[in-house]
């Protein structure tokens, strides 16, 4: 579904991503883990059209999407839940969800999806008319995920959905992510919480200062001594 070859991204003179290869198959759950500053966010931004790579190729469903802007990619089913959530603080919960469905025109389908998503996140359902800026961090993360789902993505990129959340909330978010995957959405998940991510995903990539240091099945990575020492705190 997604094939990345030799992707390079630089900010001015700084090379943040130095030529990585990455694949995600249809229906797969893949995680990308790594330390702060490894280049994970930069990679997702390049995949979703927010920044132009300096080299390399991104293919999505067999099509070259390397130079496409993000607003076109959503229409092809590629959505990103950005780092730090990026909810529209001065829009209500409902309006945020409506923005998620901006690329769609099927009113009935949109309304049905909204109810379904609010069913997953009862806390949002209770706060539909509230400004998103007044939600708690966890609620905002739920909203950011729900909003991305409103576009009916085939491939969802998630950037650190557990960031800054209490354990209970992290648990809830991961439950939601599992539910999304169960619906057949393909996932590429960036996480600091490597243990949780590897537990729910099929495969994982480990990124270190702009390159892929390791790529393996999630199970193998969980038992890999290097990974255990560096990312699982053992």
């Amino acid at each position: 579904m997604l094939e990345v070859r030799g992707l390079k991204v630089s900010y001015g003179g700084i090379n943040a991503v130095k030529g990585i290869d990455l694949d995600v198959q249809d229906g797969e759950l893949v995680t990308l883990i790594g330390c702060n500053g490894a280049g994970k966010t930069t990679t997702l931004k390049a995949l979703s059209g927010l920044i132009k790579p300096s080299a390399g190729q991104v293919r999505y469903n067999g099509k070259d999407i390397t130079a496409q802007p993000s607003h076109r990619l959503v229409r092809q089913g590629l959505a990103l839940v950005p780092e730090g959530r990026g909810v529209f603080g001065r829009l209500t919960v409902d309006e945020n969800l409506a923005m998620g469905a901006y690329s769609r025109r099927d009113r009935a389908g949109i309304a049905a999806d909204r109810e379904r998503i609010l069913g997953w996140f009862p806390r949002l359902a209770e706060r539909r008319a509230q400004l998103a800026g007044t939600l708690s961090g966890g609620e905002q993360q739920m909203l950011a995920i729900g909003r991305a789902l409103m576009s009916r993505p085939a491939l969802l990129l998630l950037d650190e959905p557990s960031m800054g959340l209490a354990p209970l909330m992290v648990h809830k978010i991961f439950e939601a992510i599992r539910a999304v995957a169960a619906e057949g959405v393909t996932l590429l998940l960036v996480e600091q919480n490597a243990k949780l991510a590897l537990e729910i995903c099929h495969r994982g990539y480990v990124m270190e200062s702009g390159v892929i240091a390791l790529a393996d099945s999630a199970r193998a990575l969980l038992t890999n001594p290097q990974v255990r020492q560096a990312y699982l705190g053992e």
Partner: protein
Amino acid sequence: MDIFIQQLINGLVLGSIYALVALGYTMVYGILGLINFAHGDIVMVGALVALAVAQALAASLLPVPLVLLFATLAALLVCVALGVTIERVAYRPLRRAPRLAPLITAIGISILLQYSAALIWGKQYISTPDLIKPEAFTFGGAQFTDLQAFIFLLACTLMAGLLWFIKASRIGRAMRATEQNAEVAGLMGVDTNRIISFTFFLGSAIGAIAGVMVVLYYGLGHYFMGFMLGLKAFTAAVLGGIGNVAGAMLGGLLLGVIESLAAGYIGDLTGGVLGSNYRDIFAFLVLILVLVLRPSGIMGQHTSERA
């Protein structure tokens, strides 16, 4: 008392025009963080185009409402084309440049528009052809004309329509989203460049109508008229809270009223030293006071945004 009501009415009419022009400043500021100093001059061009068309058609046998309609349509067309083109050609390439660059560009465009207008229409005052003879009504000891009522009501209708559009329509929602976070709006599928173009389109269209109102109201047009009008409308936008659409409306009306009341009483207050021709100082007094005391304006955005 009479003078109070009289100046209040005059102020509301004038203020509704300021409000319409202020919308152009505030919407662009909201979405780009840019003070589009050329906006007042776009309004000026609209006013002079309307004048030119009205003059050309005045001699024809067309009924007056049609003449006014054609003049307004011409102004709309030219202003919208100007506004959208200026954004595309002058501001968009500078989107990622330091903020000073587009600001200086805006001032440059402003001067360019002024002197282009001077070349086309000359530097003299141009008077509106005698198309309409406003009829006066009395109300509580004060007078107002049907033209004043028309301007005020049309302006209020436009403002109410705009508020509704921004609040309830799909594009309006996309405008607010783009204003808050353009990158994320793009992730939602919003072509933010188009939304920005559309914002210039809206602001320029509303400005064109304001320009027609000005020439009808004062019966005069001038290549430099956009300067003072623009500064006052900008003041109105700052007073209401720049970036805030409802604020620009409120700020415009308030500024019109403040200015008219002050002009009505300045003679008495200063013992005749200053006459009402000093009215323009009040707008700037207001601007300075707002900037010093409450830079975020009356309705400035204070909503906290977490995370």
